[in-house]
């Protein structure tokens, strides 16, 4: 999973070693998925892991568009949602007709639902890239979301379509009642989908998608129709989004209009971008972080969306490559053996940066709770702050101002250490 989508994969001298490392990473990923629920076995963490797994499939499918093909969609949740509805209807049909289809096959029908709609709408959508595509995707998203409230027989109106996953034929004697069984079902589909989507990046279509992303004009002069490339990429993205939606339907035993709305489309864009679109594993990191934050923040603060906004702006401004880009920046330094020269400057920067962060959090929470008329204490690292006390306001101001001034100095030090390390790496030929 560490292989960049832009990396080379021709015959290399150390091909064997690279292969080992490559399969090793995937193997570790699978082992983590298997072992995770054994280590953290509470019902709450199983649910969280399930949600994260679904979010990863969804974000990876979105990156087929954004990272691989350069298509910015504001309506990707349409395929996720339709996949979810398709899965719910399929489950209910299996139960009522007595078809011999066990639950683990249901996500496939979710995928086909997402794919079917992609086949229908995306030929027109992908005629153009850029702003035109983005606007059409927004329009289609709104169209489907509002239709879902009108077409009651298909979408079940406000209430949505409910289903019972335990009523389906069993497989290996599993009822899929307990969350742990649902978790393993999701983990299975996560692995299958991730491998399939990774494999897609290494096919002729995958590489030409990259070319279309970089320069759709030139692609036409090497024999390819960028419209067809975008269309095919979109169909794959719709298919895997549908699988994610099908998994969500299984997990929640319901599909409703929230699945295919703008908020869901925004979240997947958010997760993918924060994780980093230039590397295959970027959206995985983003999905983990965003789902985790979503679950964690909503229980401790009423303004969690504000934090999402701040994180998003921070990433866009300071690290447009996302978390993955930030991590992979260090690879040439690691290879050149100069990474250790920048680590100390990171360590020095941690304290003031964390202080600054705490100050910002304290300030936001104070304002939010004060103006919201809420008097509950703000709990930060086990210290309780009273939002109505001037001491809290002063502490926030000192942390923000002092933290910023000192943090800026340490960030400058990081920059200098970077330049030195990068120069050496460049001299040693690890950095272009």
């Amino acid at each position, binding site marked *: 999973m560490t292989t960049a989508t*832009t*990396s*080379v*994969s*021709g*015959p290399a001298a150390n091909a064997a070693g690279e292969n080992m490392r490559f399969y090793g990473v995937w193997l570790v990923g699978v082992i983590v998925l298997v072992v995770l629920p054994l280590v953290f076995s509470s019902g709450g963490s199983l649910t969280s892991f399930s949600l994260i797994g679904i979010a990863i499939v969804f974000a990876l499918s979105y990156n087929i568009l954004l990272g691989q093909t350069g298509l910015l969609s504001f309506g990707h949740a349409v395929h996720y949602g339709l996949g979810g509805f398709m899965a719910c209807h399929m489950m209910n049909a299996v139960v009522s007709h007595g078809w011999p289809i066990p639950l683990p096959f249901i996500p496939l029908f979710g995928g086909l639902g997402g794919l079917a709609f992609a086949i229908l709408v995306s030929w027109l959508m992908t005629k153009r890239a850029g702003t035109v595509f983005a606007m059409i995707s927004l329009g289609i998203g709104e169209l489907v979301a509002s239709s879902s409230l009108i077409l009651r027989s298909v979408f079940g109106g406000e209430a949505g379509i409910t289903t019972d996953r335990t009523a389906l034929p069993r497989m290996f004697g599993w009822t899929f009642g307990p969350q742990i069984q649902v978790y393993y079902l999701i983990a299975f589909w996560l692995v299958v989908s991730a491998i399939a989507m990774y*494999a*897609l990046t*290494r*096919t*002729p*279509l*995958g*590489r*030409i998608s*990259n*070319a279309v*992303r*970089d*320069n759709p*004009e*030139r*692609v*036409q*002069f*090497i*024999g*390819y*129709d960028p419209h*067809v*490339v975008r269309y*095919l990429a979109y169909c*794959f993205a719709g298919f895997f989004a549908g699988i994610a939606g099908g998994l969500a339907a299984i997990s929640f035993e319901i599909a409703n209009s929230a699945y295919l709305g703008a908020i869901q489309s925004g979240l997947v864009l958010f997760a993918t971008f924060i994780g980093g679109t*230039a590397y295959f594993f970027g959206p995985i990191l983003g999905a983990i972080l965003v789902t985790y934050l979503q679950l964690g923040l909503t229980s401790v603060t009423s303004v969690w969306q504000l934090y999402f906004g701040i994180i998003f702006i921070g990433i866009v401004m300071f690290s447009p490559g996302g978390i993955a880009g930030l991590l992979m920046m260090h690879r040439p330094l690691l290879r050149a053996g100069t990474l250790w020269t920048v680590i100390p400057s990171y360590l020095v920067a941690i304290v003031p940066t964390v202080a600054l962060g705490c100050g910002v959090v304290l300030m936001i929470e104070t304002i939010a709770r004060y103006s919201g008329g809420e008097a509950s204490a703000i709990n930060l690292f086990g210290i309780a702050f009273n939002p109505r006390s001037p001491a809290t306001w002063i502490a926030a101001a000192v942390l923000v101002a002092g933290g910023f001034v000192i943090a800026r100095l340490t960030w400058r030090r990081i920059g200098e250490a970077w330049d030195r390390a990068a120069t050496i790496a460049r001299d040693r030929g690890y950095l*272009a």
Partner: protein
Amino acid sequence: MTAAIEVRAVEKRFGNVSIIRDLNLSIAQGERHAIIGPNGAGKSTTFNLISGHIKPTSGEVRLNGDVISGLRPFEINRRGLSRSFQVTNVFARMTVWENVRCAVLWATGHRYAFWKNVDHLPEVREQTARILEDIHLTHRRDVPAGLLTYAEQRELEIGVTIAGGATVVMLDEPTAGMSHAETERAVSLIRRLTEGRTLVIVEHDMSVVFGLADRISVLVYGHIIASGTPEEIRRDPKVKEAYLGEEAH
């Protein structure tokens, strides 16, 4: 034998300005044909018209006898015509290797395949490696195209253009901005790589033009005022007056 390229009475208007007027051009199979003319004469526009980048307002273009005007660029490319761009126009975030490989994929028949591993296609790998060897960029194969030096980008531009094995190759000022030594290298490269193919080249450097071309066409204000062998062009009084005169000062 049918001409490789036949341009008949082509006109191109942008708004109500005629950029190309009554353009007639015939390029024989296997010929090395240079198009020269002052800045803004319409040389790149002619390339755009032939390669399908823009459509003629009237007139027709034939490739190996078949009408191609009105077809889209990728359809024309699939019929064996490939062109380069005056301003380097490659895939900036992809490596040199991937740039060339993408240009090989259609011609080797892999098209939009999503069931094949692109790394496990021996003929693609061999052809890509050969092209990289030809354009002297093997040692830079893993570098993103956007980070190449100017001269290297120009060589990659040529590589991407010829990679698909087109029988008609059109190069728009391939040596523009290159040093003398780089130009010499690029010209011998072009000479070698277009062996047995039809070459159409736009070039400002007269020593390159007269050294390389079998025939030359002179384009002035969107109209070809003379077409012939280098000797004929050198002697043509119209050309002397309109173009070579100012060039040779």
